[in-house]
C-alpha cells in the first residue's frame, strides 16, 4: 500500500495533525440516541434470516456440482455413443449361442425377443447408430466384453487374438477424441476472463439501474449472468436490499 510504503505524495503527517485538531464536530446526542435505539430494535428482532442459508450454502453448492457433473457425463456418454462403443456393449453376447457366429443384422429382430437386455444396456439410451453393423474387424463380442469388463471371466466365445488387438487399438484411438471433446468449452471461458465485466456500462449507474438489469437478465434466462450481477450489486451497494422477485444466490 502506498501509505505503508511512506509515499509522502499521498500522506502528510503535519497536515493530518492540523486536520485532527480542526476536526472535532460530532453528531448531536438526539441522533446518537435514535440510532442506538434503532440498532437495539433490530438486534432484538430475532435470529438472522440468512444464517440458515449461509450454513447450507456450501453443501448445497457441492451437491449441485455433483448432480451437474453426473448429468454432463451422462449426456456426453449419450452423445458420444458411436458404432464402436455400441458394438462393444455386452448385450448381444447373451443372445449368442456358444457355437453361433455373430450376426449383427439379426439384432433388431432379437430385440423383439422376450430376453431382457442386461441392466447396463437398459439404462443407456441407444442411438439409432446402434443398429448399424459393426466393421468386420469387430466381430468378436467376447473380446470386446473383456476390454470393458476388465477381469471378467473368459467366456466360451473367446475370439482369436487378432480382432482383440484391433478393437483395443480402435478404442485407444477413440479415447483422445473423447478426452478432447470438452476442450472447446474451456477456451470461451478463458476468453471471457479477459473480456470486460458484464456490468461495465453500469459502473456509474445508481442501484435501481442495476436492479433493472438483473431483472432483465433473469427474465431473459441469463441466470448465471444475473447471479454474477447480484454478487457485484451486493459488493457495491451493501446497504441496498434486492426486490423479492430477484432470485438471490
Amino acid at each position, binding site marked *: 500500500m*502506498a501509505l505503508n510504503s511512506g509515499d509522502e505524495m499521498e500522506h502528510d503527517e503535519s497536515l493530518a495533525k492540523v486536520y485532527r485538531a480542526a476536526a472535532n464536530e460530532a453528531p448531536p446526542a438526539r441522533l446518537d440516541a435514535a440510532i442506538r435505539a434503532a440498532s437495539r430494535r433490530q438486534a432484538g428482532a430475532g435470529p438472522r434470516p440468512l444464517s440458515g442459508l449461509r450454513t447450507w450454502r456450501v453443501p448445497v453448492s457441492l451437491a449441485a456440482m455433483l448432480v451437474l457433473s453426473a448429468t454432463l457425463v451422462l449426456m456426453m456418454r449419450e452423445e458420444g455413443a458411436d458404432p464402436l462403443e455400441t458394438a462393444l456393449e455386452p448385450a448381444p453376447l447373451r443372445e449368442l449361442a456358444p457355437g453361433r457366429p455373430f450376426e449383427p443384422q439379426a439384432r433388431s429382430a432379437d430385440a423383439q425377443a422376450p430376453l431382457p437386455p442386461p441392466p447396463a444396456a437398459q439404462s443407456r439410451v441407444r442411438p439409432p447408430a446402434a443398429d448399424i453393423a459393426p466393421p468386420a474387424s469387430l466381430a468378436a463380442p467376447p473380446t470386446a466384453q473383456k476390454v470393458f469388463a476388465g477381469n471378467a471371466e473368459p467366456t466360451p466365445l473367446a475370439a482369436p487374438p487378432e480382432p482383440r488387438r484391433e478393437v483395443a487399438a480402435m478404442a485407444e484411438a477413440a479415447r483422445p477424441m473423447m478426452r478432447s471433446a470438452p476442450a472447446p468449452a474451456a477456451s470461451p471461458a478463458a476468453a471471457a476472463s479477459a473480456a470486460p465485466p458484464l456490468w461495465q456500462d453500469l459502473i456509474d449507474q445508481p442501484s435501481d439501474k442495476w436492479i433493472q438489469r438483473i431483472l432483465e437478465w433473469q427474465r431473459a434466462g441469463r441466470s448465471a449472468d444475473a447471479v454474477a450481477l447480484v454478487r457485484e450489486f451486493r459488493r457495491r451497494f451493501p*446497504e441496498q436490499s434486492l426486490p423479492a422477485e430477484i432470485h438471490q444466490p
Partner: protein
Amino acid sequence: MNTLTVIQSAAVKGLPAGCRSPGASAYWRPEMPQDADASDESLMLAYRDGDAGAFDRLYERHRGGVYRYMLRQCRNAALAEELFQDVWMNLIRARASYEVQARFSTYLYRIAHNRLMDHFRRRDFVAMSLDDETAAPVEEPAALPGAQPEIDIEARAQAAQLLSLLGKLPDEQREAFVLQQEGGLSVEEIAEATSVSRETAKSRLRYAMAKLREGMQSWR
C-alpha cells in the same frame, strides 16, 4: 498487501482492524477507545448475530468520522445529520447480509458514499456546489485541550485555514482526503469505497495533498 492481510495482521498484533501499530503509519482513528481489542469486523459480525452492545462500540468508534465526512461533503449541518442517520440505518438494515469481504471502514464509507451520491442524484445535482447559499459556514474549531492561549490561537487559525482550503477542493479530492483522515482508508480502500480505480483514487489524493500543502506553506 491486500485487505484481508491488513485485517489478519492487525488481529495478530492484537490491534483493532483498521488501526495501525504506532510506528507503522500515521493513520488516525478518532474516538478509538484504547481498551478496545475487538476488531470492527468481529463487532459487526457479533451485531449481525444479535449482539446490540457490539453495535454501540462500533458506533462509538465511527460516529464522528462518518458525521464529519458527511459534513465536509455536503457542507450543510442539517443535511449532514439526515444523511448520517440514513447511513447508520442502512447499516442496521443490511446487518443480516453482512460478510467480511473488506475492512469494516471500507464497507461503512462505501455505504456513506453511496448515500451521498444517491442524495445528489435525486436532487439532480451534477456536483456538490461550494457556492450553495444554504451551505453552513465552516465552523471555527474549538479550543484545543491543554493548549496555551497563544498556541491555542495559532492552532485554531491554522486549523481554520486548513478547513477553508479543504472546502475549496474539488469534491472528489476533498472526499479522498477526508476518507483517508476520518476513515483511515488506504488508497485502495478509497478506490473501493468510491467505486473508482486505484489510480484515480491515488491521483485525487495526491492533488488534494498538493493543494493543501501549498495553501499551508505559510504555517510551515
